[in-house]
């Protein structure tokens, strides 16, 4: 364990926190309709958009209309993306002349990008035209991230407002989250990345002769612009199949560090936004700290497992770190473990190492984080609203012990909220467990597996976990571009997204109507260390235990076999 590694991990956490606080404050102002210093820049543009689309920005709606608008918007995005892929042959910006994408893959990809999952069952550089990448995928990279943000903003309003009926205007929230947050961050990010050497062009692919005389095709494209939003929006869908291991996507240690920072920046800032919007910054802080501590535990576990490496490799007499297979030598163990933890903590799924090649326990950490529902920072918006579901459950289970009907932010948690929260925690269990179970006993499922034994089960489990949690990272090893996986994972992706968003908005709708009981000495405190510990405990017990049997049969047993117990 090198000191440098630890210093780097700590440096990452410090810089992340340092940037998240002001960004969180800024977003709170944006979504409360307060003035921000960027208004002169974006306000005219926003007005223009509303005038063109006929949106009345003063009208707010209840949760049902809000959810309706969200569903319609996402459905349209899905249809457009689906047909763009099918028809790319006839459309411009296709210098490589790629043919139509198969319908099952198009379904899978459309579902994947609309839901901020960015699971890629294909290799981008050999399947998708520039038009699909830009007008289809990149657009979804923005709006799917924006969708996550608006849901958590709506939920926050539902918790903050008292005896009200509306939770906001979906179109306004969507516009503002893109104009004020995602777009500026991506532009700045893309410029920095380009400066560091990430490519940005529309060239046809280069055909080169390598030093030893071999032929190589070098894929080109507008990478930097997609790279920034891929990270900021926790999308993770790489321009290239190799994702952030590719030198054109991630050329230097600095870009590696920046990309890791970009992934968690918005998710880490949102708890602060939440705290400010509910009028008590402490409420946001406790969520941030809980996420941070869980994150550090997971990073530590993944890092230790990777450093410990594979005793079988060491036994072969290979010196140095024993678990380097499948990792970029440019980044090494610490950065790979950190990146893997970050990308699965958030619902990003960008990778700078092949997760299939992580040590069994090192590979279990990403899986576990996704199984928790990606609430350790999590996806843009999705992480916080997922965590707030756990907050509600924690308050309900533990809060009763103080002798009052459980209340969060002064509002009583009643059967409607519990019903919805229960659905939200049921969804990952349904998608991950049933999907993996189906795949592990059907020919269609097992024929795609690269490795046999427990590692093969891990591959299946990882795929459904990544889909159900809307992460999109791949364990690799599994050939997922088959009709079975394209459709099964596509369904898991859609369920994993909207099966949680709808209950979350329903909770917002239930809570917004309630009166708030003023806080007093009899109130169960939802700030402070004790609450943070309880929250982490409930996350682990309720979520992790569900998947414990499956994990025991996959990575845990694989680890035990590896170490020769």
């Amino acid at each position, binding site marked *: 364990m090198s000191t440098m590694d630890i210093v780097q991990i700590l440096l990452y956490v410090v810089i992340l926190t340092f940037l998240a606080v002001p960004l969180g404050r800024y977003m709170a102002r944006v979504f409360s309709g307060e003035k921000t210093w960027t208004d002169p820049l974006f306000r005219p543009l926003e007005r223009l958009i509303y005038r063109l689309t006929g949106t009345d920005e003063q009208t707010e709606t209840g949760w049902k209309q809000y959810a309706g608008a969200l569903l319609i918007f996402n459905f349209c995005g899905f249809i457009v993306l689906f047909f763009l892929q099918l028809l790319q042959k006839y459309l411009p910006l296709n210098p490589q002349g790629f043919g139509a994408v198969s319908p099952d893959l198009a379904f899978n990809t459309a579902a994947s990008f609309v839901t901020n999952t960015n699971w890629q069952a294909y290799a981008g550089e050999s399947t998708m035209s520039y038009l699909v990448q830009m007008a289809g995928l990149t657009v979804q990279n923005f709006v799917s991230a924006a969708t996550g943000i608006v849901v958590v903003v709506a939920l926050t309003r539902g918790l903050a407002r*008292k005896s009200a009926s509306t939770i906001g205007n979906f179109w306004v929230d969507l516009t503002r989250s893109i104009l004020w947050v995602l777009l500026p961050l991506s532009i700045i990010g893309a410029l920095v990345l380009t400066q560091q050497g990430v490519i940005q062009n529309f060239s046809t692919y280069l055909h080169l002769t390598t030093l030893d005389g071999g032929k190589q095709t070098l894929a080109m494209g507008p990478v930097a612009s997609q790279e920034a939003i891929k990270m900021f929006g926790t999308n993770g869908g790489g321009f290239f199949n190799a994702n952030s291991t590719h030198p054109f996507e991630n050329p230097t240690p600095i870009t590696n560090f920046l990309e890791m920072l970009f992934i968690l920046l918005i998710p880490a800032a949102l708890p602060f936004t939440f705290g400010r919007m509910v009028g008590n910054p402490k409420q946001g802080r406790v969520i941030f700290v809980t996420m941070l501590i869980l994150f550090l535990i997971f990073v530590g576990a993944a890092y230790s497992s990777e450093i410990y490496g594979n005793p079988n490799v060491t036994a072969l007499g290979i010196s140095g770190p024993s678990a380097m297979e499948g990792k970029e030598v440019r980044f090494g163990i610490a950065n790979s473990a950190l990146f893997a933890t970050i990308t699965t903590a958030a619902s990003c799924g960008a990778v700078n190492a092949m997760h299939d090649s992580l040590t069994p326990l090192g590979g279990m950490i990403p899986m576990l984080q996704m199984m928790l529902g990606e609430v350790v920072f999590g996806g843009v918006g999705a992480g916080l609203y997922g965590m707030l579901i756990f907050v509600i*459950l924690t308050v*309900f*289970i*533990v809060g*009763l*012990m*103080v*002798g*009052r*009907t*459980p209340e969060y932010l*002064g509002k*009583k*948690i*009643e*059967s409607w*909220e*519990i*019903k919805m*929260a*229960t*659905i939200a*925690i*049921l969804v990952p*269990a*349904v998608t991950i*467990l*049933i999907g*993996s*179970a*189906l795949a*592990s*006993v059907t020919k269609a499922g*097992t024929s795609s597996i690269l490795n046999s034994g427990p590692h*093969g*089960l891990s591959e299946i489990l990882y795929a459904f976990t990544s889909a159900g949690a809307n992460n999109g990272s791949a364990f690799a090893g599994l050939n997922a571009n088959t009709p079975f996986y394209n459709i099964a994972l596509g369904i898991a992706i859609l369920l994993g997204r909207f099966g949680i968003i709808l209950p979350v908005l329903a909770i917002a709708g239930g809570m917004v109507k309630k*009166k*708030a*009981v*003023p806080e*007093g*000495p*009899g*109130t*169960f*405190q939802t700030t402070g260390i*004790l609450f943070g510990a309880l929250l982490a405990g409930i996350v682990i*017990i*309720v979520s992790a*235990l*569900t998947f414990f*049997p*499956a994990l*025991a*049969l996959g990575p*845990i*047993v694989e680890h035990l*076999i590896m170490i020769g*117990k």
Partner: protein
Amino acid sequence: MQENVSHEGKKNPSGSINSAMIVEAIKDAFKKLNPSIMWRNPVMFVVEIVAVLSTYFVLRDLLTHAKTLGFNTQIAIWLWITVIFANFSEAIAEGRGKAQASALRKTRSETLAKKLDGEKIVNVPAPDLRKDDVVLVEAGDVIPGDGEVIEGIASVDESAVTGESAPVIRESGGDRSSVTGGTKVLSDWIKVKITANPGETFLDRMIHLVEGAKRQKTPNEIALTILLLGLTIIFLLAVATLEPYAIYSGTIVAVPVLAALLVCLIPTTIGGLLSAIGIAGMDRLLKRNVLAMSGRAVEAAGDVNVLLLDKTGTITLGNRMATEFIPAPGVPAEKLADAAQISSLADETPEGRSIVILAKEKYNLRERDINNLGATFIPFSAQTRMSGVNLEGREIRKGATDAIEKYVREQGGIMHPDVITAVEDIAKKGGTPLVVAEGAQALGVIHLKDVVKGGIRERFAQLRKMGIKTVMITGDNPLTAAAIAAEAGVDDFLAEATPEAKLKLIRDYQNKGHLVAMTGDGTNDAPALAQADVGVAMNSGTQAAKEAGNMVDLDSNPTKLIEVVEIGKQLLMTRGSLTTFSIANDVAKYFAIIPALFFATYPQLKILNIMHLATPQSAILSAVIFNALIIVALVPLALRGVKYEPLGANIILRKNLLFYGLGGLIVPFIGIKIIDLIISALGWA
């Protein structure tokens, strides 16, 4: 405060659990296996289905002479025991109520009512009476139904309903006009207008309530049931999908084993005890002679954060007492005390008696017989607003300041300015000044004071720590009210309270998000009782008040409101603690069962067997047995409720968390290990 503690136990025949009740509860536990009853408790319903399933495998093993017969039989038996234990917990909780209900039913014996048909008296059976019928009830008769006295006055023995043997007066008009069916007129007669049809009377409702026949799940109970159901489904998925993973891994897990795992993981502990906790909460109220009209009210009581308390009877002893004699300049204190005593000897009001007592205590003046002194007593009248005596030429008067001042002036004297100052001082302190004069001389002032009950101040401090605000309601003027409020340590007060002001106060608090509890007895209290989240009507109060409130205090003791709140809190705490305990239990059960399940395929997993359980079979069996036994072990706790202390939320949380949360993590590790040792020693598995 203390006085009502003594009521406990003497009233209701439902005090403790006896062996007959246990036998009855065991019978009921089996009756409740009926699926049409069982499904009301989804968690235990799942256990029942699983038990049926494993019984099927036992039968199959019997027919095929399989080797697994012994093990599968034990699993099936313990699964059935789990269900029966859960049913037993509910049955035993219901048992106490049933015992009381049957006692109540006896009082609802068939009585003949003397129905008035014009001037004629017709004898009709009580169940034939309808609303608005008028009946005559004479000494020795049982009142045939709930009603309102429209004529007459009588003393009534209400012990059948309240358990209180001292008779009460019931008369037409005013707040003492309501009578309850089943109670007995001891003297005189009354004409009663019946206000409830048979089946809807107070006694009927009471029987229903204590029997739990109409028991509906409370809002929090419903929410918790949903969560438990959700957890059950999640674990059902986790267990059901284990089979495909096992098949993938090249093994098959026997269904009874999966059944065992499922039952261990789903929250059976809280699922089994949930309903018993709710019933026991209402029962604890009943033991204190408070009838809650619904479980919802009990739950709301736990949430209350504002208590509206009537000053008289709750905060103060109810009567003003003399606490000090303040003589006028130049008058010896003994002289004032003497005059005060003589003038009060014939005064039978509590104030009058307290003056005599004070004179005796402070100046050692013995009580004298007013008749032997040959004195004439001048009673208090509304015109003169004073009372006194004429004795051997002495004329002693005591009364309100302005009345005495007028009297002194008429006698040709003048009141010393110091007396006026003393009067003002007393008023400022919230007391009532009573001026004593003899002839033309004002002798001084008696300080009459509302005496705050002992211990009440500490009680309010406790409530404040729990986050409950106390508001004193009084008809006194603001000055007096403020003084008493300060002395009693309430947070706020409403002076010169009218029913409208009370109602407005409740609404104001509710609009700020508070939940309000109050007591009341008069008809004019009804709107406020209905508006309050918890309205406790006094049994001595009017029918309207009882209808409006959601609880009735049979003892008519307003102080009990505080206990009601405590019981509500205790109920919620018990529910939360056992839920936490139940969920925390799962950790240990996983570590017992998972390594056992896959022992054959992946012996490496034995590293997870941190309890070092003897064999896979004994591990599974131990977990199932622990899971069943913990239910019955916690029944006493569910019935009694967790220990309640009036502390702030944070301290309570820490205590309960340490005990039930941490305990829930650790206890099963120890319990399962011990059971494993026993069953391997016995050679069961």
